[in-house]
Protein backbone atom coordinates (compact mmCIF):
# COMPACT_ATOMS: atom_id res chain seq x y z
CA UNK A 1 0.00 0.00 0.00
CA UNK A 2 1.40 3.43 -0.84
CA UNK A 3 2.75 5.35 2.15
CA UNK A 4 0.35 8.27 1.74
CA UNK A 5 -2.71 6.01 2.13
CA UNK A 6 -1.60 4.60 5.50
CA UNK A 7 -3.11 6.11 8.69
CA UNK A 8 -1.23 9.18 9.81
CA UNK A 9 0.29 7.93 13.03
CA UNK A 10 1.68 11.35 13.76
CA UNK A 11 -1.84 12.84 13.73
CA UNK A 12 -3.26 10.33 16.20
CA UNK A 13 -0.22 10.57 18.45
CA UNK A 14 -0.60 14.36 18.70
CA UNK A 15 -3.70 15.00 20.88
CA UNK A 16 -3.35 18.79 21.02
CA UNK A 17 -6.70 20.54 20.15
CA UNK A 18 -8.91 17.47 20.78
CA UNK A 19 -10.30 18.95 23.98
CA UNK A 20 -11.35 22.04 22.05
CA UNK A 21 -13.27 19.89 19.55
CA UNK A 22 -14.96 17.94 22.34
CA UNK A 23 -15.86 21.17 24.16
CA UNK A 24 -17.31 22.61 20.93
CA UNK A 25 -19.38 19.44 20.39
CA UNK A 26 -20.67 19.72 23.96
CA UNK A 27 -21.46 23.41 23.49
CA UNK A 28 -23.36 22.73 20.26
CA UNK A 29 -25.25 19.86 21.90
CA UNK A 30 -26.24 22.04 24.85
CA UNK A 31 -27.41 24.85 22.55
CA UNK A 32 -29.35 22.35 20.44
CA UNK A 33 -30.90 20.85 23.55
CA UNK A 34 -32.00 24.24 24.87
CA UNK A 35 -33.32 25.33 21.49
CA UNK A 36 -35.17 22.04 21.00
CA UNK A 37 -36.68 22.44 24.43
CA UNK A 38 -38.10 25.87 23.57
CA UNK A 39 -39.11 24.84 20.04
CA UNK A 40 -40.94 21.69 21.11
CA UNK A 41 -42.67 23.53 23.94
CA UNK A 42 -43.88 26.31 21.62
CA UNK A 43 -45.01 23.74 19.06
CA UNK A 44 -47.01 21.94 21.74
CA UNK A 45 -48.60 25.18 22.94
CA UNK A 46 -49.49 26.20 19.39
CA UNK A 47 -51.09 22.81 18.79
CA UNK A 48 -53.10 23.23 22.00
CA UNK A 49 -54.25 26.69 20.86
CA UNK A 50 -55.26 25.38 17.44
CA UNK A 51 -57.25 22.59 19.11
CA UNK A 52 -59.14 25.19 21.14
CA UNK A 53 -59.81 27.30 18.03
CA UNK A 54 -61.25 24.20 16.35
CA UNK A 55 -63.32 23.46 19.44
CA UNK A 56 -64.73 27.01 19.52
CA UNK A 57 -65.52 26.87 15.79
CA UNK A 58 -67.33 23.57 16.37
CA UNK A 59 -69.32 25.23 19.17
CA UNK A 60 -70.43 27.93 16.74
CA UNK A 61 -71.30 25.35 14.08
CA UNK A 62 -73.32 23.31 16.57
CA UNK A 63 -75.03 26.47 17.73
CA UNK A 64 -76.13 27.39 14.22
CA UNK A 65 -77.30 23.81 13.64
CA UNK A 66 -79.90 24.02 16.39
CA UNK A 67 -83.44 24.17 15.03
CA UNK A 68 -86.65 23.93 17.02
CA UNK A 69 -90.12 23.85 15.50
CA UNK A 70 -92.91 25.10 17.72
CA UNK A 71 -96.59 24.41 17.08
CA UNK A 72 -99.91 24.51 18.96
CA UNK A 73 -98.68 27.46 20.97
CA UNK A 74 -101.07 28.78 23.58
CA UNK A 75 -100.83 31.05 26.61
CA UNK A 76 -103.16 30.95 29.61
CA UNK A 77 -102.78 32.75 32.91
CA UNK A 78 -103.74 31.21 36.24
CA UNK A 79 -103.06 33.27 39.36
CA UNK A 80 -100.24 35.37 37.89
CA UNK A 81 -98.63 32.27 36.37
CA UNK A 82 -98.42 32.22 32.59
CA UNK A 83 -98.88 28.66 31.33
CA UNK A 84 -97.12 28.18 28.02
CA UNK A 85 -98.52 25.23 26.10
CA UNK A 86 -96.69 24.14 22.98
CA UNK A 87 -95.44 21.24 20.94
CA UNK A 88 -91.70 21.47 20.42
CA UNK A 89 -89.74 19.39 17.92
CA UNK A 90 -86.00 19.27 17.49
CA UNK A 91 -85.65 19.54 13.72
CA UNK A 92 -81.94 20.28 13.77
CA UNK A 93 -78.85 18.15 13.32
CA UNK A 94 -77.73 18.30 16.95
CA UNK A 95 -79.32 17.53 20.28
CA UNK A 96 -80.68 20.54 22.13
CA UNK A 97 -80.75 21.33 25.82
CA UNK A 98 -83.23 24.03 26.82
CA UNK A 99 -82.34 25.76 30.08
CA UNK A 100 -84.60 28.81 30.34
CA UNK A 101 -87.88 30.16 29.00
CA UNK A 102 -88.63 33.89 28.91
CA UNK A 103 -92.15 35.27 28.57
CA UNK A 104 -93.01 38.92 27.95
CA UNK A 105 -96.53 40.21 28.45
CA UNK A 106 -96.57 42.92 25.81
CA UNK A 107 -99.86 44.36 27.01
CA UNK A 108 -98.67 45.30 30.48
CA UNK A 109 -94.96 45.44 29.53
CA UNK A 110 -93.86 42.96 32.18
CA UNK A 111 -91.78 39.84 31.86
CA UNK A 112 -90.66 36.74 33.69
CA UNK A 113 -88.49 33.70 33.24
CA UNK A 114 -88.16 30.12 34.38
CA UNK A 115 -84.56 28.93 34.52
CA UNK A 116 -85.25 25.48 35.96
CA UNK A 117 -86.20 23.71 32.73
CA UNK A 118 -83.19 21.57 31.76
CA UNK A 119 -85.05 19.88 28.89
CA UNK A 120 -83.09 17.62 26.56
CA UNK A 121 -84.26 16.99 23.01
CA UNK A 122 -82.42 14.58 20.74
CA UNK A 123 -82.61 15.05 16.98
CA UNK A 124 -86.18 14.36 15.86
CA UNK A 125 -87.59 14.29 19.41
CA UNK A 126 -90.92 15.99 20.10
CA UNK A 127 -92.10 17.17 23.49
CA UNK A 128 -95.62 18.33 24.24
CA UNK A 129 -96.09 20.84 27.01
CA UNK A 130 -99.77 20.93 27.80
CA UNK A 131 -102.08 21.21 30.81
CA UNK A 132 -100.13 19.93 33.83
CA UNK A 133 -96.92 19.80 31.78
CA UNK A 134 -97.27 23.40 30.61
CA UNK A 135 -94.24 25.57 31.18
CA UNK A 136 -94.94 28.13 33.91
CA UNK A 137 -93.57 31.62 34.27
CA UNK A 138 -94.70 34.09 36.91
CA UNK A 139 -95.76 37.55 35.69
CA UNK A 140 -97.70 39.58 38.23
CA UNK A 141 -100.81 41.27 36.88
CA UNK A 142 -100.91 39.23 33.68
CA UNK A 143 -104.12 38.10 32.07
CA UNK A 144 -105.03 35.48 29.45
CA UNK A 145 -106.39 38.15 27.07
CA UNK A 146 -103.01 39.89 26.94
CA UNK A 147 -100.51 39.54 24.13
CA UNK A 148 -97.45 37.42 24.89
CA UNK A 149 -94.16 36.67 23.31
CA UNK A 150 -91.68 34.11 24.57
CA UNK A 151 -88.46 32.35 23.73
CA UNK A 152 -86.29 29.48 24.89
CA UNK A 153 -82.63 29.81 25.78
CA UNK A 154 -80.55 26.77 24.91
CA UNK A 155 -77.34 25.66 26.52
CA UNK A 156 -75.50 26.82 23.38
CA UNK A 157 -76.76 30.35 23.93
CA UNK A 158 -79.40 30.28 21.20
CA UNK A 159 -82.58 32.26 21.67
CA UNK A 160 -85.42 30.30 20.05
CA UNK A 161 -88.60 32.36 19.69
CA UNK A 162 -91.79 30.49 20.46
CA UNK A 163 -93.86 31.44 17.48
CA UNK A 164 -96.04 29.39 15.24
CA UNK A 165 -94.44 28.56 11.91
CA UNK A 166 -95.86 31.20 9.57
CA UNK A 167 -97.82 29.16 7.07
CA UNK A 168 -97.82 29.84 3.37
CA UNK A 169 -101.18 31.62 3.53
CA UNK A 170 -99.84 34.19 5.98
CA UNK A 171 -96.62 34.54 4.00
CA UNK A 172 -98.50 35.05 0.73
CA UNK A 173 -100.84 37.47 2.46
CA UNK A 174 -97.88 39.45 3.71
CA UNK A 175 -96.35 39.50 0.23
CA UNK A 176 -99.67 40.27 -1.43
CA UNK A 177 -101.07 43.17 0.57
CA UNK A 178 -98.22 44.25 2.80
CA UNK A 179 -95.81 43.19 5.46
CA UNK A 180 -97.86 44.10 8.52
CA UNK A 181 -100.49 41.71 9.82
CA UNK A 182 -103.14 42.71 12.31
CA UNK A 183 -104.76 40.81 15.15
CA UNK A 184 -108.55 41.24 14.96
CA UNK A 185 -109.18 39.58 18.30
CA UNK A 186 -107.02 42.04 20.25
CA UNK A 187 -108.58 45.20 18.82
CA UNK A 188 -109.60 47.58 21.64
CA UNK A 189 -110.65 51.10 22.35
CA UNK A 190 -109.88 53.48 25.22
CA UNK A 191 -111.88 56.25 26.79
CA UNK A 192 -110.24 59.27 28.43
CA UNK A 193 -109.55 59.91 32.10
CA UNK A 194 -108.46 63.47 31.29
CA UNK A 195 -107.95 65.36 27.98
CA UNK A 196 -104.55 63.72 27.41
CA UNK A 197 -104.70 60.57 29.55
CA UNK A 198 -106.33 57.29 28.59
CA UNK A 199 -108.26 55.39 31.22
CA UNK A 200 -107.65 51.70 31.86
CA UNK A 201 -104.52 51.67 29.69
CA UNK A 202 -103.28 49.33 28.23
CA UNK A 203 -106.17 46.93 28.85
CA UNK A 204 -108.91 49.18 27.41
CA UNK A 205 -112.12 47.58 26.19
CA UNK A 206 -111.81 44.68 23.77
CA UNK A 207 -114.91 45.20 21.64
CA UNK A 208 -116.19 46.24 18.21
CA UNK A 209 -119.07 48.14 19.82
CA UNK A 210 -117.85 51.65 20.50
CA UNK A 211 -119.79 54.44 22.26
CA UNK A 212 -121.08 57.17 19.91
CA UNK A 213 -120.26 60.85 20.40
CA UNK A 214 -117.42 59.94 22.77
CA UNK A 215 -113.73 60.83 22.86
CA UNK A 216 -111.95 57.54 22.27
CA UNK A 217 -108.60 56.15 21.13
CA UNK A 218 -108.04 52.84 19.36
CA UNK A 219 -105.44 50.15 20.09
CA UNK A 220 -104.40 47.77 17.32
CA UNK A 221 -101.87 44.94 17.51
CA UNK A 222 -99.67 44.67 14.43
CA UNK A 223 -97.08 42.01 13.62
CA UNK A 224 -94.18 42.47 11.24
CA UNK A 225 -94.30 39.54 8.78
CA UNK A 226 -92.10 41.14 6.15
CA UNK A 227 -90.76 38.39 3.83
CA UNK A 228 -87.38 40.12 3.71
CA UNK A 229 -87.35 40.14 7.54
CA UNK A 230 -86.53 43.84 7.79
CA UNK A 231 -87.55 46.21 10.57
CA UNK A 232 -90.58 48.40 9.86
CA UNK A 233 -90.77 51.88 11.36
CA UNK A 234 -94.12 53.65 11.52
CA UNK A 235 -94.06 57.44 11.35
CA UNK A 236 -96.53 60.12 12.41
CA UNK A 237 -98.44 60.15 9.09
CA UNK A 238 -100.14 56.89 10.04
CA UNK A 239 -103.75 56.89 11.12
CA UNK A 240 -106.89 54.92 11.89
CA UNK A 241 -109.40 56.23 9.35
CA UNK A 242 -113.15 55.89 9.32
CA UNK A 243 -114.62 57.16 6.05
CA UNK A 244 -117.77 59.26 6.17
CA UNK A 245 -121.00 58.72 4.34
CA UNK A 246 -124.35 60.58 4.26
CA UNK A 247 -125.36 61.12 7.87
CA UNK A 248 -122.07 59.85 9.33
CA UNK A 249 -119.14 62.17 9.84
CA UNK A 250 -115.67 61.06 8.74
CA UNK A 251 -113.19 60.35 11.56
CA UNK A 252 -109.41 60.30 11.76
CA UNK A 253 -107.28 59.14 14.67
CA UNK A 254 -103.56 59.67 14.08
CA UNK A 255 -100.89 57.54 15.72
CA UNK A 256 -99.52 58.59 19.13
CA UNK A 257 -97.00 57.46 21.74
CA UNK A 258 -98.52 56.52 25.06
CA UNK A 259 -96.64 56.28 28.36
CA UNK A 260 -97.15 53.38 30.74
CA UNK A 261 -99.65 55.36 32.83
CA UNK A 262 -101.80 56.11 29.76
CA UNK A 263 -100.60 59.68 29.19
CA UNK A 264 -100.38 60.60 25.51
CA UNK A 265 -97.19 62.40 24.45
CA UNK A 266 -97.66 65.73 22.69
CA UNK A 267 -94.96 64.77 20.16
CA UNK A 268 -94.62 61.48 18.31
CA UNK A 269 -91.41 59.50 17.92
CA UNK A 270 -91.48 56.73 15.28
CA UNK A 271 -92.16 53.20 16.49
CA UNK A 272 -90.03 50.34 15.13
CA UNK A 273 -91.20 46.80 14.73
CA UNK A 274 -88.63 44.05 14.20
CA UNK A 275 -89.42 40.98 12.09
CA UNK A 276 -91.77 38.67 13.97
CA UNK A 277 -92.42 41.29 16.64
CA UNK A 278 -95.92 42.29 17.72
CA UNK A 279 -96.75 45.64 19.28
CA UNK A 280 -99.84 47.61 20.15
CA UNK A 281 -100.19 50.86 18.22
CA UNK A 282 -102.49 53.53 19.63
CA UNK A 283 -104.40 55.94 17.38
CA UNK A 284 -105.84 58.96 19.20
CA UNK A 285 -104.99 62.36 17.73
CA UNK A 286 -107.20 64.42 15.39
CA UNK A 287 -103.99 65.83 13.91
CA UNK A 288 -100.82 64.37 12.50
CA UNK A 289 -98.42 65.19 15.37
CA UNK A 290 -95.64 66.14 12.93
CA UNK A 291 -97.93 68.81 11.44
CA UNK A 292 -100.13 69.88 14.36
CA UNK A 293 -100.69 69.50 18.06
CA UNK A 294 -102.54 66.76 19.89
CA UNK A 295 -106.29 66.99 20.09
CA UNK A 296 -108.42 63.99 20.95
CA UNK A 297 -110.93 62.72 18.41
CA UNK A 298 -114.60 61.94 18.93
CA UNK A 299 -116.77 59.21 17.44
CA UNK A 300 -119.78 60.32 15.28
CA UNK A 301 -123.05 61.01 17.05
CA UNK A 302 -124.91 58.39 15.06
CA UNK A 303 -125.97 54.86 15.86
CA UNK A 304 -124.56 53.01 12.89
CA UNK A 305 -122.01 50.56 11.58
CA UNK A 306 -118.90 51.91 9.87
CA UNK A 307 -115.90 50.57 8.02
CA UNK A 308 -112.42 51.49 9.20
CA UNK A 309 -108.97 51.43 7.64
CA UNK A 310 -105.41 51.55 8.95
CA UNK A 311 -103.32 53.86 6.81
CA UNK A 312 -99.71 53.11 7.72
CA UNK A 313 -96.72 55.15 6.62
CA UNK A 314 -93.01 54.82 7.38
CA UNK A 315 -89.96 52.84 6.33
CA UNK A 316 -89.15 49.21 5.65
CA UNK A 317 -85.46 48.82 6.42
CA UNK A 318 -84.03 51.92 4.78
CA UNK A 319 -86.67 52.29 2.05
CA UNK A 320 -90.02 54.06 2.19
CA UNK A 321 -93.03 51.92 3.09
CA UNK A 322 -96.78 52.40 3.24
CA UNK A 323 -99.73 50.06 3.64
CA UNK A 324 -103.49 50.44 3.68
CA UNK A 325 -105.16 47.73 5.72
CA UNK A 326 -108.93 47.28 5.36
CA UNK A 327 -109.60 46.98 9.02
CA UNK A 328 -112.47 46.09 11.32
CA UNK A 329 -116.04 47.30 11.15
CA UNK A 330 -117.35 49.13 14.20
CA UNK A 331 -120.81 49.63 15.58
CA UNK A 332 -121.31 53.03 17.24
CA UNK A 333 -124.06 52.97 19.83
Amino acid at each position, binding site marked *: MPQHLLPNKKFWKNSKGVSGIIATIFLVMIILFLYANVFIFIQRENTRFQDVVS*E*VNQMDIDRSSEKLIVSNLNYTVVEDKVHVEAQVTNDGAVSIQIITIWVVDKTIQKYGHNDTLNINLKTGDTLIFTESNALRVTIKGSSSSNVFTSWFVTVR*GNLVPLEEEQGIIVAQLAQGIGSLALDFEKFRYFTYESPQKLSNYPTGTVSFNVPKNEYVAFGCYLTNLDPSKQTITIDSHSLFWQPGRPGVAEGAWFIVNVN*EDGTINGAYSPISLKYGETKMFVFASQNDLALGSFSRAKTPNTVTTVATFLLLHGTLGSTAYAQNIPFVSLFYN
Partner: protein
Amino acid sequence: MSVVISNVLMACAVIALGFAVYYWTWLRVSDVNLEYANVTEENIARIREKLDFEYIFYNTSENELTVYLLNWGKSGDVSLASVYLGNVSWSQSFYDIELRFLNGTLTQSLDILEEGYFQISVALVTNTSYFIRIATGRERLFATTFIA
Protein backbone atom coordinates in the same frame (compact mmCIF):
# COMPACT_ATOMS: atom_id res chain seq x y z
CA MET B 1 3.18 20.12 41.58
CA SER B 2 1.98 23.70 41.58
CA VAL B 3 1.32 23.43 37.84
CA VAL B 4 -0.96 20.43 38.44
CA ILE B 5 -2.84 22.20 41.20
CA SER B 6 -3.30 25.33 39.16
CA ASN B 7 -4.53 23.25 36.21
CA VAL B 8 -7.01 21.41 38.42
CA LEU B 9 -8.21 24.67 39.91
CA MET B 10 -8.53 26.18 36.44
CA ALA B 11 -10.47 23.16 35.18
CA CYS B 12 -12.77 23.29 38.21
CA ALA B 13 -13.38 26.99 37.71
CA VAL B 14 -14.17 26.51 34.01
CA ILE B 15 -16.55 23.61 34.76
CA ALA B 16 -18.26 25.56 37.56
CA LEU B 17 -18.62 28.59 35.32
CA GLY B 18 -19.99 26.34 32.56
CA PHE B 19 -22.58 24.87 34.89
CA ALA B 20 -23.52 28.35 36.13
CA VAL B 21 -24.03 29.60 32.56
CA TYR B 22 -25.98 26.47 31.67
CA TYR B 23 -28.15 26.82 34.77
CA TRP B 24 -28.81 30.50 34.06
CA THR B 25 -29.68 29.72 30.43
CA TRP B 26 -31.97 26.91 31.57
CA LEU B 27 -33.76 29.29 33.93
CA ARG B 28 -34.22 31.82 31.14
CA VAL B 29 -35.56 29.11 28.85
CA SER B 30 -37.97 28.03 31.57
CA ASP B 31 -39.10 31.63 32.05
CA VAL B 32 -39.70 32.03 28.32
CA ASN B 33 -41.66 28.77 28.24
CA LEU B 34 -43.70 29.78 31.26
CA GLU B 35 -44.45 33.22 29.81
CA TYR B 36 -45.47 31.69 26.49
CA ALA B 37 -47.68 29.17 28.28
CA ASN B 38 -49.37 31.96 30.25
CA VAL B 39 -50.01 34.02 27.12
CA THR B 40 -51.41 30.96 25.36
CA GLU B 41 -53.58 30.15 28.36
CA GLU B 42 -54.94 33.71 28.44
CA ASN B 43 -55.70 33.61 24.72
CA ILE B 44 -57.41 30.25 25.07
CA ALA B 45 -59.54 31.54 27.94
CA ARG B 46 -60.41 34.63 25.87
CA ILE B 47 -61.56 32.79 22.77
CA ARG B 48 -63.52 30.32 24.89
CA GLU B 49 -65.52 33.18 26.41
CA LYS B 50 -69.05 33.34 25.01
CA LEU B 51 -71.69 35.67 26.38
CA ASP B 52 -75.22 35.85 25.09
CA PHE B 53 -77.80 38.57 25.63
CA GLU B 54 -80.90 36.71 26.84
CA TYR B 55 -83.10 39.77 27.21
CA ILE B 56 -82.77 43.54 27.35
CA PHE B 57 -85.53 45.48 29.02
CA TYR B 58 -85.83 49.23 29.39
CA ASN B 59 -88.08 50.48 32.18
CA THR B 60 -89.34 53.83 30.92
CA SER B 61 -90.83 54.92 34.24
CA GLU B 62 -87.60 54.35 36.19
CA ASN B 63 -85.14 55.05 33.36
CA GLU B 64 -83.44 51.76 34.03
CA LEU B 65 -81.95 49.35 31.53
CA THR B 66 -81.73 45.70 32.58
CA VAL B 67 -79.53 43.35 30.58
CA TYR B 68 -79.73 39.60 31.08
CA LEU B 69 -76.70 37.49 30.14
CA LEU B 70 -75.80 33.84 29.78
CA ASN B 71 -72.23 32.53 29.86
CA TRP B 72 -72.46 29.70 27.32
CA GLY B 73 -68.74 29.49 26.66
CA LYS B 74 -66.13 27.13 28.05
CA SER B 75 -64.42 29.78 30.21
CA GLY B 76 -65.59 30.44 33.73
CA ASP B 77 -65.06 33.54 35.80
CA VAL B 78 -66.37 35.95 33.15
CA SER B 79 -66.46 39.42 34.69
CA LEU B 80 -67.68 42.71 33.23
CA ALA B 81 -65.11 45.48 32.86
CA SER B 82 -67.27 48.08 31.16
CA VAL B 83 -70.45 48.63 29.20
CA TYR B 84 -70.72 50.92 26.21
CA LEU B 85 -74.18 52.10 25.25
CA GLY B 86 -75.20 54.36 22.40
CA ASN B 87 -76.90 55.06 19.10
CA VAL B 88 -75.97 57.00 15.97
CA SER B 89 -75.86 60.34 17.75
CA TRP B 90 -74.98 59.50 21.37
CA SER B 91 -72.90 57.10 23.41
CA GLN B 92 -71.86 56.60 27.00
CA SER B 93 -69.56 54.25 28.90
CA PHE B 94 -70.40 52.66 32.22
CA TYR B 95 -67.95 51.16 34.71
CA ASP B 96 -68.28 49.48 38.10
CA ILE B 97 -71.12 47.32 36.83
CA GLU B 98 -72.95 45.37 39.53
CA LEU B 99 -73.46 41.89 38.14
CA ARG B 100 -76.08 39.71 39.78
CA PHE B 101 -77.36 36.17 39.39
CA LEU B 102 -80.99 35.79 38.30
CA ASN B 103 -82.01 35.38 41.95
CA GLY B 104 -80.56 38.83 42.71
CA THR B 105 -77.38 37.72 44.49
CA LEU B 106 -74.42 39.97 43.78
CA THR B 107 -71.52 38.28 41.99
CA GLN B 108 -68.19 39.30 40.53
CA SER B 109 -68.34 36.93 37.57
CA LEU B 110 -70.33 34.27 35.77
CA ASP B 111 -69.09 30.71 35.59
CA ILE B 112 -69.90 28.30 32.78
CA LEU B 113 -73.66 28.17 32.03
CA GLU B 114 -74.50 30.69 34.71
CA GLU B 115 -77.06 33.40 33.97
CA GLY B 116 -76.99 36.90 35.39
CA TYR B 117 -78.00 40.47 34.86
CA PHE B 118 -76.93 44.03 35.46
CA GLN B 119 -78.82 47.29 35.56
CA ILE B 120 -77.88 50.72 34.29
CA SER B 121 -79.63 53.95 35.17
CA VAL B 122 -79.87 55.85 31.91
CA ALA B 123 -82.45 57.96 30.09
CA LEU B 124 -83.18 56.46 26.67
CA VAL B 125 -85.67 57.53 24.02
CA THR B 126 -88.37 54.89 23.66
CA ASN B 127 -88.84 53.13 20.34
CA THR B 128 -85.31 54.07 19.35
CA SER B 129 -82.61 51.62 18.34
CA TYR B 130 -79.48 51.43 20.52
CA PHE B 131 -76.36 49.28 20.53
CA ILE B 132 -74.75 47.85 23.63
CA ARG B 133 -71.18 46.55 23.89
CA ILE B 134 -69.86 44.67 26.87
CA ALA B 135 -66.14 44.42 27.56
CA THR B 136 -65.22 41.49 29.79
CA GLY B 137 -62.35 41.28 32.22
CA ARG B 138 -60.42 39.31 29.57
CA GLU B 139 -61.03 42.14 27.11
CA ARG B 140 -63.50 40.31 24.91
CA LEU B 141 -66.27 42.39 23.36
CA PHE B 142 -69.86 41.23 23.01
CA ALA B 143 -72.38 43.46 21.29
CA THR B 144 -76.00 43.58 20.24
CA THR B 145 -78.69 46.09 19.34
CA PHE B 146 -82.07 46.65 20.92
CA ILE B 147 -85.04 48.98 20.76
CA ALA B 148 -85.70 50.83 24.00
